[in-house]
C-alpha cells in the first residue's frame, strides 16, 4: 500500500459523491484521515500488532461518525426525543383515592409492599414445635355467573407466622387447587413440593423449618426446608385458607377485558395437632383486608354466597378465607413509565446505525476504508464499538436526565407514597433500568448496523429491525397469551424487560400481560436476547463482508 494509491482512491470517491455538502465534507475528512494513517501504516508495517490495528480502526470509525453533521444531529434528536417522550408519558396522569386517604399497604420483612390477607385459625407456639394437619378437602367457591369455575390458586394449609400483623414473617406449607403443594415463606419465596399427599407437617427447630408430606399420616416424606430468621420464639401457628378472586380475561387485537369475581377457599382440616404450643383453644382471625371488591356500576348489590370465617368442632377445623399472601401486584411500574422515551429514541438511532454501514457501500467509501485498513472484520468490530458506545452514552445521559423529572411529575400527579413507591436515581432498580435501556438502544443501533452490512441497503435494514423490535410488541397484545409471551421471548423486543423495576412472580395469580408492560424474562435475561441477535447478526455480517466484494 502506498500513499499515492490511497490518494487516488480517495480522489475517486470524491468524484463519485459530488452531492450534498455533508457528503463532501465527510469524504474530505476521511481522505485526510486515510492519508495520515496510511503514512503511519507504511512506516510501521512490520511492527503493527492486531491491537494497534483495531485502535486505528476505532479512531477512523469515530472520525467517520463524528464528521457527518447529519448523524450528529440525528443522535442529538434521539436524545431530545427520549427526554421529551419520557416526560410526556409521565405527565398529566391522575390517581383517584376513593374513600379518603388509603391505609398504608402492608410491608413484608424486606420492606417491600406485599399482599397479606387470609383467614387464620391459630394458637401460640413457644420455641420449637411441630404442627400436623390432614387437609380433608379444599374447595374453591366463585361467586356470580362464573359459579361453576374454580380458582387454581385457592389455597389452604398450615402456617407458622411471627404475628397477626399483615406483612409479618411466616413459613407455610400449603395445598392449592391447581398448582400442587408448595412451601412458601416471606411472600417472595416459593418452592413446589414434589411429594403427593393430604397430610401436611411443619417442624420448627430454631430458625430452621422443615416440611413433610404424607398420604396416610404415618409414612412421611421430607418435602423441603427453609431457614427464616425473622420469626421470634413466640409465634402463631395454625391452619389457614385464602383465595384470590376468579379472573376471566379476553384479549382481542388490543382490547382487553378482565372480569373479577370474588372467590373463597374452604379448607377442612382434621387431626390437627400442635406440639410445643401452650395448651389452649384455637382463635380465628381474618388477617389483613381482603381485596376490595368492585361491583360493576349499576349492578344490583350481590349477596355473597359465603363469608370468611372458621369453625372448630372437635378435631375438625373448617376455614373459609379470601385474599392473597403474595408480593405486591405488578400493577403500574413507575420506573418503566419514566423511561418510555427509550422506544422513540431507539427508532431514531436505528437510522444512524443502518446508515453508518450502508452509506459506506452507497458512496463507495468502503473501498477507501478497505484499502486503508484491509481487515474487514476489524472494521465491523470497530464500527460496532464506536456506534454502540456513542449511542449508549447519549441514551444514558438523556434517560438519566429525563428520569428524575418524569418521577417528580408522576409524584405530583398522585403517584406517590404511600400508594406508590418513590423512585430516585439512587435506587438500584432505577439505575439498572436506565443503564439497561441505554444498553438496549445501543444494541438495537448495532443490530441495525450489522443488518446494514448484511443487506447493504438502508431501507431493508431499517425495516427489518423495526419489524423485529416494534411489531412483536403490537402483535403481543393481539395474540393469545402463550403466543405473545413466546414472541416477546424470541425477538429483540424481549430486551424491554430491562425497564421493569418489579419482578413478576410466577407463583401468584397475577397475569403477566404485555399490555401492562410485563415481559416474560427477568431484566438482564431479557437484555441477553437482543445481545444474542447482535452477536448472530455480527457474525453473519462478518462472514458476508469477507466473502463478498467490497
Amino acid at each position: 500500500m502506498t500513499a499515492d494509491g490511497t490518494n487516488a482512491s480517495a480522489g475517486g470517491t470524491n468524484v463519485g459523491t459530488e452531492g450534498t455538502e455533508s457528503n463532501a465534507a465527510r469524504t474530505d475528512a476521511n481522505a485526510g484521515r486515510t492519508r495520515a494513517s496510511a503514512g503511519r501504516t507504511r512506516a510501521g508495517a512490520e511492527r503493527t500488532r492486531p491491537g494497534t490495528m483495531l485502535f486505528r480502526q476505532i479512531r477512523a470509525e469515530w472520525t467517520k461518525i463524528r464528521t457527518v453533521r447529519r448523524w450528529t444531529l440525528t443522535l442529538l434528536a434521539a436524545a431530545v426525543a427520549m427526554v421529551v417522550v419520557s416526560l410526556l408519558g409521565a405527565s398529566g396522569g391522575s390517581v383517584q383515592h376513593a374513600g379518603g386517604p388509603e391505609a398504608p399497604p402492608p410491608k413484608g420483612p424486606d420492606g417491600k409492599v406485599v399482599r397479606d390477607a387470609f383467614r387464620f385459625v391459630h394458637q401460640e407456639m413457644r420455641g420449637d414445635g411441630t404442627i400436623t394437619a390432614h387437609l380433608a378437602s379444599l374447595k374453591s367457591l366463585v361467586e356470580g355467573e362464573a359459579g361453576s369455575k374454580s380458582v387454581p390458586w385457592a389455597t389452604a394449609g398450615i402456617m407458622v407466622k411471627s404475628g397477626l400483623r399483615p406483612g409479618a414473617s411466616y413459613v407455610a406449607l400449603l395445598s392449592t387447587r391447581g398448582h400442587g403443594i408448595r412451601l412458601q415463606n416471606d411472600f417472595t419465596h416459593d418452592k413446589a413440593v414434589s411429594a403427593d399427599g393430604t397430610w401436611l407437617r411443619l417442624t420448627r427447630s430454631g430458625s430452621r423449618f422443615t416440611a413433610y408430606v404424607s398420604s396416610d399420616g404415618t409414612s412421611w416424606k421430607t418435602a423441603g426446608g427453609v431457614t427464616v430468621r425473622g420469626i421470634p420464639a413466640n409465634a402463631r401457628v395454625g391452619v389457614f385458607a385464602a383465595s384470590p378472586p376468579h379472573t376471566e380475561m379476553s384479549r382481542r387485537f388490543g382490547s382487553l377485558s378482565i372480569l373479577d369475581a370474588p372467590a373463597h377457599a374452604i379448607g377442612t382440616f382434621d387431626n390437627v395437632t400442635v406440639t410445643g404450643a401452650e395448651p389452649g383453644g384455637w382463635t380465628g382471625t381474618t388477617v389483613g383486608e381482603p381485596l376490595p371488591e368492585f361491583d360493576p356500576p349499576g349492578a344490583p348489590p350481590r349477596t355473597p354466597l359465603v363469608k370468611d370465617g372458621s369453625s372448630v368442632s372437635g378435631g375438625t377445623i373448617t376455614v373459609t378465607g379470601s385474599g392473597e399472601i403474595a408480593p405486591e401486584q405488578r400493577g403500574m411500574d413507575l420506573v418503566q413509565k419514566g423511561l418510555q422515551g427509550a422506544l422513540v429514541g431507539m427508532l431514531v438511532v436505528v437510522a444512524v446505525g443502518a446508515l453508518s454501514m450502508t452509506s459506506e457501500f452507497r458512496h463507495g467509501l468502503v473501498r477507501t476504508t478497505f484499502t486503508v485498513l484491509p481487515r474487514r472484520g476489524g472494521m465491523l468490530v470497530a464500527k460496532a464499538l464506536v456506534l454502540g458506545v456513542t449511542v449508549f452514552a447519549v441514551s444514558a445521559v438523556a434517560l438519566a436526565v429525563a428520569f428524575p423529572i418524569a418521577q417528580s411529575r408522576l409524584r405530583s400527579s398522585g403517584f406517590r407514597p404511600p400508594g406508590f413507591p418513590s423512585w430516585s436515581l439512587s435506587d438500584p432498580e432505577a439505575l439498572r433500568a436506565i443503564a439497561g435501556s441505554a444498553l438496549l438502544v445501543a444494541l438495537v443501533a448495532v443490530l441495525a448496523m450489522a443488518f446494514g452490512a448484511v443487506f447493504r441497503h438502508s431501507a431493508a435494514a431499517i425495516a427489518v429491525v423495526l419489524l423485529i423490535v416494534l411489531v412483536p410488541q403490537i402483535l403481543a397484545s393481539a395474540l393469545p397469551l402463550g403466543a405473545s409471551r413466546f414472541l416477546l421471548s424470541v425477538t429483540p423486543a424481549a430486551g424491554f424487560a430491562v425497564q421493569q423495576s418489579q419482578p413478576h412472580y410466577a407463583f401468584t395469580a397475577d397475569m403477566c400481560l404485555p399490555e401492562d408492560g410485563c415481559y416474560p424474562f427477568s431484566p438482564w435475561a431479557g437484555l441477553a436476547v437482543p445481545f444474542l441477535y447482535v452477536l448472530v447478526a455480527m457474525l453473519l455480517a462478518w462472514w458476508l463482508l469477507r466473502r463478498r466484494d467490497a
Partner: protein
Amino acid sequence: MEIEVDGLRKRYGQVSALDGVSFTVRPGLVTGFVGPNGAGKSTTMRIVLGLDAADGGHALVGGRPYRSLRDPLRAVGAMLDAAAVHPGRRGRDHLRWIAHAAGLPARRLDEVLEQVGLAGGAAKRRAGGYSLGMRQRLGIAAALLGDPRVLMLDEPVNGLDPEGIVWIRGLLRSLAAEGRTVLVSSHLMGELEGTADRLVVIGRGRIIADASVPELLAAASGGRVALRTSAPADAMAVLSRAGGTVASVGADALTVTGLDAEAAVAALGASRVPFAEVSAHRATLEEAYMELTRDAAEFEAAPGGGRS
C-alpha cells in the same frame, strides 16, 4: 435552438455558487464549459434544466424556461450524473421509463442503445453491475433518446476508456455538424482540445472567458516571440522602437512581447540586425486555462468549497 444564460445567481447558505453568470450557447457548435471543480458548472446546468431555482437571473432554452417546454426531451437531452441509475433496474428499463415519459416509441430504445454501444446483453443486465463507463454510455443514451435539438452533457468523458473518449468526441462533433446545440462541461481543458469550437470558462461562480478556441489561445500566448541574435543590444533597440517589450534571457537569446513574429522579423530585417531561430511561442489550451483559472484554483484550495 440556443441556450441563453443571463445573470444567474445562486447561493448555498454562506457559499455563493453562481455570481452573475451569463453566456449563450449556439447551435452547430460544440461549446465547452470548463472550470475547476466547484466553479459552478453543474449548478448552471441544473438551473438551465429547471432542477434548481436561481436566486436571480434566468436561463432559457430556445427562448423559454425549461419547465415550460411542451416536449422537453425532444428539445433537450441531458446527462448530469451518470451514476443516477437505480442499481436494481435493467439498463433498458431505465431508458424505457424515460421513453414513456417523453411519449417515444420503443424502437428508439434499440436505436440509441445501438448508437452508444450498449446493444445486446449489457442493456438487459441490472445497472448495479455496470462499470462507470457503461453507466456513462447509458446516461448518454438517455440524453439522445428524444433526438433532441440541444444536448447538455456534464463531464461525459469521466470513466470512459481511450476508445470511448475517441467515440464521444466523434459523437459530439457529428451532433454539432447536424446543427444541434451541444454544451459539454469538463474540469480538464485537455479533454476538450480538438473537440470544442467555443469555450466558456467559469471560475468562482463567474464567467472568466467566453470565446472561440483560437481567440483564447491567442490571448493566452500573448504574442510572445523568442529569437537568437549575435547583436543583442542592436536587436533590443530596434525591437523596442518597433513597439515591443524585449527581455534578454541569455547571452544571445531574447524574448519579445507586444509584437508578432512577422513584425519582429520585418523590423530586424529593415535595420539589418542579424538574427536566427525566430519562433512564435504558441500556448496550449491547457496553459491558457491554467492562466485563466489561477484565481479560482486558489479559491478551491481554501476550506469549505461549494458544490460543483
